[in-house]
């Protein structure tokens, strides 16, 4: 299991702080084991957004954006400052950060 912790401001969105646990190895095909999206965005009803955070468990990172948008429609969420693609962008950034070579300082 790998942990992703990403702070990102996708274009057109509010600042998002995404925390996720994903299956190893961390790639676009990793499954979401847990997901929390914090930030100053709006999602109404708020409880519906929290349900989606839970329901996204088991989805692979590469499909999270589409899955989120579909669930948000089903839950009749009104969103402002957040989107499925923004969450996926954050997760992908987290994967890239995990897989990027560590800088070695002498």
């Amino acid at each position: 299991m790998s942990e992703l912790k990403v702070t990102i401001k996708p274009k057109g969105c509010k600042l998002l702080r995404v925390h996720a646990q994903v299956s190893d190895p961390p790639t676009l095909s990793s499954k979401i084991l847990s997901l929390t999206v914090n930030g100053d965005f709006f999602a109404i009803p708020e409880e519906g957004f929290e349900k989606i955070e839970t329901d996204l468990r088991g989805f692979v990172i590469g499909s999270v954006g589409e899955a989120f948008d579909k669930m948000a429609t089903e839950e009749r969420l009104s969103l402002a400052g957040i989107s499925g693609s923004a969450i996926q962008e954050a997760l992908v950034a987290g994967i890239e950060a995990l897989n990027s070579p560590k800088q070695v300082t002498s």
Partner: protein
Amino acid sequence: MSYQFRLLQTGYADASFNMGLDMAILDAVASGQSLPTLRFYEWSPPAISLGYFQSVEEEVNLEACKANGDDVVRRVTGGGAVFHDAEVTYSIGIPEDHPLAAASIIESYRILCQGIIDGLRVLGIEAQFAPINDIVVGNKKISGNAQTRRKHCIFQHGTVLLAVKPELMFSLLKVPKEKSRGKMIEDIKAGVTSIETLKGQALRIETVQDALQQGFASALGLEYVDYNIRTQEMKSAKEYAANQFGNSEWTYRR
């Protein structure tokens, strides 16, 4: 067209009670026991309120808040962390089937924020709505607003800045590690304004509240016909304060 509204000025209270009373009012409006309501209130002690989806750990310098004697509370509305000190705070609750209720979030903000904009005009300040949820003068923010929909009601609360205190604010809020405190303070000074800055003098809270009342009345066609808070609402507010907003499980849930 005018709409009968209740107008409340509930004065200073702590953060848990203030948020609890907002919820109690929402319940009363939702059940039809109270008219749609516009409320003005103040915070004592000053407080940080967090948006529904924010984390205390990520946003708040708890040690500084404690040392300063400030409250920390989680709102039922989204949006960002707010330092409630030198400001006028309002809330407005209307049923979703009210003529002033718009279906989309941003349109709804636009309609309700017009009350603030007209109120600022009473004070000689020309402001504009800045989607999603801000009001600006020029390119500087003077008011932030946050909205939710519960129990078939639209509920919005927000603030109008009387003065800007970025140094104090950023001693209480955490600064993203990629930014320096000094840069954040500079950003606030560049991007935020206040009534004191614009008018060149501090105005009394009552003066600003009066202007905003007039602004809401003119912009939304409100006719204030009730000025009373119900006993049941006060009881309910205290229960919300004790069981939800003053409860650490709620505050630290994210």
